[in-house]
């Protein structure tokens, strides 16, 4: 699921020791867990909430909650997966609250620039950044953000965890408190919706690129 430098088994063992020591009262032992898993939790959180500021808050809250509930953590489980689940659940709650607030304030849903340090599409090697291409890239990125925002929380979580984080269906089902079949359907619905919303723009972009190559 997560990219780690150390082998999964040694990470798990080391995590188990850190959990044990924390439970025994050694607060600093928790530091090992925070430092080891923060990057992965940040990546998941960023993809769920869509901006850096919120993602960082989700990470902090996830570790605080993990610390408070550590006695409920089962020794045979994987700490990384567990904290991942806490982060995903918290991110979902947070998104719900934000959506409600946004609806109250009648603010536009899409926020295209916040938290993105560079235009990710500008890193695509296939095109020189002509003004037209740049405009299309920005437009497509905006559409992608809109499409992700249009998914329900469950769909977005399922898609992010499955497609980007490579989580198993069972693991996603545990976060969504659903069963495997319903979770598979949620992933499918998410991809289907994204496809419906983005395919015309992806096609346009491909055609434009093809025309640009020809000319």
């Amino acid at each position, binding site marked *: 699921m997560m990219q780690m430098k150390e082998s999964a088994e040694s990470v798990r063992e080391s995590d188990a020791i850190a959990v044990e020591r924390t439970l025994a009262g050694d607060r600093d032992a928790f530091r090992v867990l925070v430092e080891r898993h923060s990057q992965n939790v940040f990546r998941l959180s960023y993809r769920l909430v869509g901006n850096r500021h919120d993602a960082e808050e989700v990470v902090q809250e996830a570790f605080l909650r993990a610390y408070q509930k550590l006695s409920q953590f089962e020794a045979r489980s994987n700490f990384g997966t567990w904290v991942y689940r806490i982060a995903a659940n918290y991110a979902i709650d947070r998104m719900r609250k934000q959506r409600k607030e946004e609806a109250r304030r009648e603010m536009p849903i899409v926020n295209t620039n916040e938290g993105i340090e560079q235009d990710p599409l500008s890193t695509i090697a296939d095109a020189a950044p002509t003004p037209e291409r740049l405009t299309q890239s920005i437009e497509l990125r905006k559409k992608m953000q809109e499409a992700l925002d249009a998914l*329900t929380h469950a769909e977005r979580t399922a898609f992010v965890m499955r497609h980007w984080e490579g989580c198993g269906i069972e693991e996603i089902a545990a976060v969504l408190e659903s069963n495997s079949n319903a979770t598979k359907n949620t*992933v499918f619905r998410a991809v289907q919706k994204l496809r419906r919303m983005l395919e015309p723009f992806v096609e346009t972009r491909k055609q434009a690129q093809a025309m640009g190559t020809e000319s």
Partner: protein
Amino acid sequence: MKHPTEEDLIGYHEGEGLRRDELTTHLAGCEECRAELQRIEAVLKALDTLSVPDPGEDYGRRVWQQIAPRLSEKRTRWWESWIEPRRLAAFGAVAALIIAAFLAGRFTKRRDTGPEALSPVQVRERVLVVAVGDHLGKSEMMLVELSNAEPLQAGQKEVNISAEQRRAEDLLEENRLYRQTALQDGDAGLASVLDELERVLLDVAHSPQEVTPAQLEAIQERIAARGILFKVRVVGKELQQKQEAPKPLPAPNDPTKKERNKA
């Protein structure tokens, strides 16, 4: 092989193992399906370009610095989950019920000396009948409201069912305790209905707070499919009749209970 559906192709792209070999073979020979898969992949590939900013090598250390001062709060111990307000309320309700049953039993014993007097066991049963009847009434009301819920406006994307969810959560705790009591009393029929009700309550309590109209419809269909509203009504009615009956409650091995258990 028939052409795979869009769902099959998405599953295939996401690495699903089901019918994988069959699909690989089909895709190798079917240009149309290959093109369809490529279109799906093109969208997902475009989405992959939405990169995540690198939080930096020392991110873990920074997170630790930010949360360390807040870790002084005590960790939740295993037994602390048992003293959550909601759980306490449910336990309180049942404890009050037991005390009421006990007191009522003693009271009845002293005053009633005739042949129609209720035994403490019967009084306890009667108190439980009232409490379970009330619980079923509240459950029925919540299920009816949920079954009739619909988007306020046409085209509304999400329906908020958080109020029903909170009620389902509260009812869930009570339901568990009544089900266990019914089982202990050997009332398998009531326990079975409460067991089914518990599944529905769990389903509602674990649904998202805001559901799409399709999800709401699915919940309503699940409620309808189990026929739980009908069962709750029937048992509720039966309990109400028992409450209103002037004669003493039947003994634990009474034939009507046996009849319900059989059903």
